[in-house]
């Protein structure tokens, strides 16, 4: 450490963090209790005290290129033990929110997606797009010779034929994945750059093995299990996570059935899947799990701040969205069985709007944590920082 780094506090950026809900960061007197109690923080350059100091200084670049803010699972242990009420857990949450906005392209969308006042507009967009799709359904079908009628009675496919639905969502989902990928790459580069400047890239694990380690951790929620103050948060996440995963897989299976298996098979598999089809059962359990997970999470977040940390619009909008996607999905199915056409179509339409908002707005909403946290974990594992190097760490 021979040369001094020229550095100037950016108190305006610090103010931005304060205004976004991290106002207690100023109370921090740098005692490091938080870093000691945090069960997830590595021994070397632990978080979150480091981030508290950077935040006080307003060191934007360091904060956004810091994988550590994503290694935190917001268990609130640190905030509970902070002697000053600086709520480091909340500050990290705010930093994650700002990081999403920072890396996403186009950045302004993050501002729109997470603001309740913009909600009508943000729902209107997919609403109009879907309506447009319905209007264009028949012209397209006749041009390309595609089926528009899928059977008698109430069939959602009669509203949105499979080709239309899959084409529509594939297009936008592809766009979202692309944009999220851009954000992820920018983030990765920033992390790498910061480490290079600080002269500490170790690269102990290959990218592939790091990725596998991280996926294993995500599937087991191993790191999350070390949180003691908010054990319920892990349960909620685990439930919703697997629920969502199940739905996602069954949707994929449906596409495969419709476009790979059935065209080749002699006796096509029935679609929509009958109620007792294993895939259907799996999806129904998944939908239930998703809703239950959301309910636990919502209940948890409604508790006192001292227990759960602060919840911002960023958290709430995502959580409610997820919840209503699950609810409308279940209702849609129920109404199909009930053959209630008009309410069924309405609910289905709403469900699609919500699903669009959940999936397509992913790069800008809290859902982006799926990308950024994974990338940060992989990076941490890859750069030798490790995602699991504090095996026994009681939170007291």
């Amino acid at each position: 450490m021979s040369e001094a780094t020229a550095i100037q506090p950016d108190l305006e950026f610090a103010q931005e963090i304060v205004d976004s809900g991290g106002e207690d960061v100023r109370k921090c007197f740098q005692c490091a209790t938080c870093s000691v109690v945090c069960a997830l923080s590595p021994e070397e350059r632990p978080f979150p005290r480091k981030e508290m100091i950077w935040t006080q200084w307003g060191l934007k670049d360091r904060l956004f290129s810091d994988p550590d803010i994503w290694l935190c699972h917001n268990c609130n242990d640190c905030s509970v033990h902070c002697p000053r009420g600086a709520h480091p857990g909340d500050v990290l949450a705010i930093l994650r929110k700002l990081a999403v906005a920072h890396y996403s392209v186009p950045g302004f969308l993050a501002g729109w997606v997470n603001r309740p006042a913009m909600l009508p507009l943000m729902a209107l967009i997919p609403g109009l797009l879907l309506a447009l799709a319905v209007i264009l359904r028949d012209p397209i079908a006749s041009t390309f010779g595609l089926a528009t009628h899928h059977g008698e009675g109430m069939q959602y496919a009669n509203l949105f034929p499979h080709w239309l639905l899959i084409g529509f969502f594939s297009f936008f989902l592809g766009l979202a994945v692309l944009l999220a990928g851009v954000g992820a790459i920018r983030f990765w580069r920033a992390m790498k750059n910061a480490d290079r400047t600080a002269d500490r890239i170790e690269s102990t694990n290959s990218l592939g093995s790091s990725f596998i380690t991280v996926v294993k951790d995500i599937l087991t929620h191993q790191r999350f299990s070390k949180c003691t103050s908010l054990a319920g948060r892990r349960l909620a996440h685990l439930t919703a996570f697997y629920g969502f995963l199940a739905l996602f897989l069954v949707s994929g299976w449906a596409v495969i059935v419709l476009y790979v298996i059935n065209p080749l098979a002699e006796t096509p598999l029935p679609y929509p899947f009958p109620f007792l089809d294993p895939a259907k059962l799996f999806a129904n359990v998944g939908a239930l799990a998703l809703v239950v997970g959301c309910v636990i999470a919502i209940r948890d977040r409604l508790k006192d701040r001292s227990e759960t940390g602060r919840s911002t619009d960023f958290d709430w909008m995502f959580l409610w969205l997820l919840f209503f996607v699950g609810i409308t999905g279940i209702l849609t199915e129920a109404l199909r069985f009930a053959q209630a056409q008009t309410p069924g179509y309405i609910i289905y339409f709403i469900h699609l709007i919500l699903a669009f908002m959940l999936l397509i707005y992913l790069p800008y909403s809290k859902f982006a944590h799926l990308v950024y946290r994974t990338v940060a974990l992989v990076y941490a594992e890859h750069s030798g920082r490790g995602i699991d190097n504090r095996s026994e760490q009681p939170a007291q």
Partner: protein
Amino acid sequence: MEQKTLSVHLCGGCEISSSIDLEALAQIPEGAECSTHPCLCNDEGVGSLKSAIKSGANALVIAACSPRYKTDEFTFDKCFVERVNLRELVAWSHEPNDEDTQMMAEDYLRMGLVRARKAELPEPFDIPIDKTILVVGAGTTGIEAATQAARAGYEVILVEKNSDAGGWRRKFSRVFPDKPPYGQLTETNLSEQIAEIEQEERITLYTSSVVAGISGQPGQFDVDIRTNGDVNRVRVGAIVQATGWEPYDANKLTHLGYTDSADVVTNVEMEEMLAENELKRPSDGKPIKTVVFVQCAGSRDKEHLPYCSTVCCRVTMKQALRARELHPDLQAVVLYKDIRTPGQYEDLYRKAQDDGGILFTKGDVQSVKNGTDGSLSVDVRDTLLGEQIRLDADLVVLATGMVPVSADGEANRRYQDAQAVIEGGSTGAKLVAAQKTVAELEPYVSESILNLDYRQGRDTPVLKHRFPDSHFICFPFESRRTGIYNAGAMRAPGDTASSRSDGAGAALKAIQTVELAAQGKAVHPRWEDMSYPDFFFQRCTQCKRCTEECPFGVLDEDEKGTPQLNPTRCRRCGICLGACPERVISFKDYSIDIVSSMIKSVEIPDEFDEKPRLLGFICENDAYPALDTAGLKRLKHSPYIRFIPVRCLGSVNIVWIADAFSRGFDGVLLVGCKSGDDYQCHFIKGSELMGTRSDNVREKLTQLALEEERVRIEELSITEYDRLPEIINSFAEEIEEIGMNPFKGF
């Protein structure tokens, strides 16, 4: 000497009668009436004492509990009372009904009888006492001291060297509050306080004035106040020195750029800039965007001020908040080693932290240098950012610490003495020694402040870092000059609140002094003692030991070097008595003869009984209470020791030790208070002096062909009662190993 009529009373209460054979004990006093009572301290017991006095007794020997208890019950007008401690020292700390226990009780009674016969009731001196209080320095502390003394009904003379009263606070536009809410800056309110001292009839304020000389003693100080060349002589009874502080000299902080740039200022200069209500870069008048505050500038630094001045953190918070009030666009960065906001001032810290334009951050400032485009560049190490950083600043404020405005009276005097030797044309070793002293003391000499006409120097002695020598916790405000009290930032660095409470405290001490002096009584710690040293000058050889060793500068000398007593300066420690080789000095109830006779009254069993005898001189201030506590806890100690309480370990004259050995004692144990930098000696130097004198004692022992281990000095604090039995027993064992004193029976 008035004829003594003794009356002896033995108490059987508090387990005494179940452990000591009182009937046998009652045989000891010969030629005096002796009675036993089951409980002397109840109404009936006290009644029996009163009736003894009525029937003519003028000296009572009460053999009961420790003299530290039941003082109200056992104090009688115009009657000498000797307390023999049978309870704590004998009954509670020895085997009941043992032969040795009985012998011990008998010896203590014998010693008490001797003392009662020989000692006289002290008579207070009677000199006219002036009760005016002089306060030197009319800053925050001085104003408070003057106001409080005046409110209590005393005349006050307040001397201020500047043209106006008020001190540093005159310069401050805002202060941090001295009452809740602690997060809110306030005005100084100085004008109200100045108005009060100006309106108060009892206070006479001398501005643009200094103290040119002080002679005399408490109750009779003659003070020369010089105002622009005119000297006024006034008489006062006691003095509060509230001369305050000055900022540490920032010119010595070269690494912090103070000498290189006009834009590096001290916190005091910042205070002046803030008072203008506008901040500009001192160098070029440009607006200021970033201010960097460097905390502990020169403080807690071995090279500069090793201590913490306690206020600088809060001053910086105040200044940063004020600067932001004046210029909301300005950013302040505070670089600190540790933030220290004592007590409720945490609120001020929170308030400053909450301000979005103030950043507190830990780090060690390496250097402040001129940077580009006229700004400064600050290098900081050991930051929590984990690297060495460089910050740009338009203004750097050095939070410098407080240096007491005091003078080292003793150093000044030694310096002048050495100067006189050099100028007097001495040669050889004397000259070399004097030159060495001069060189050594050079950094410590300064102009005198009080100009005391005292033999030991013209100012009060100082301790570390030039703060006055007074035990911080046990004897706050006291200096080593009776009747002169230190207060405010010159006593210990502090803020307005602590200065004001100091001012009030010192004023109360000053009032105590004049009131007690008027009654001929001592001040703390021998509060209310009316005895004082008497000099039998025919034998004085003018050796000057007493005038040198008196810790309180009580004794002046006439031209021949004969000591001159100033009784109201005296704390009655008896150190002079211990120092005098000619046995010139005595108190009515404490003298060479009294103690020698007590020593000689102890029965020494002959060599073949294998019962050694040890003599313990035990300091009354802390060690004796510890001994009482050991008794209270029923901790047993060797029955071979006999204790004589002394006023201070320094009051032990080595004649007594010689007497003990020639009487046949096998060892002498001396127990006193802790000496050294964190001394606990109530008379500052007593136990330390005993340490020096014991070298002479050892020499004497060797001359007598006695082992030097026969004398042991132990230092003890009042809480260490549990160590005492161990000390006594291990000494007893050692003496048994060495063997009996061969002088026994001579």
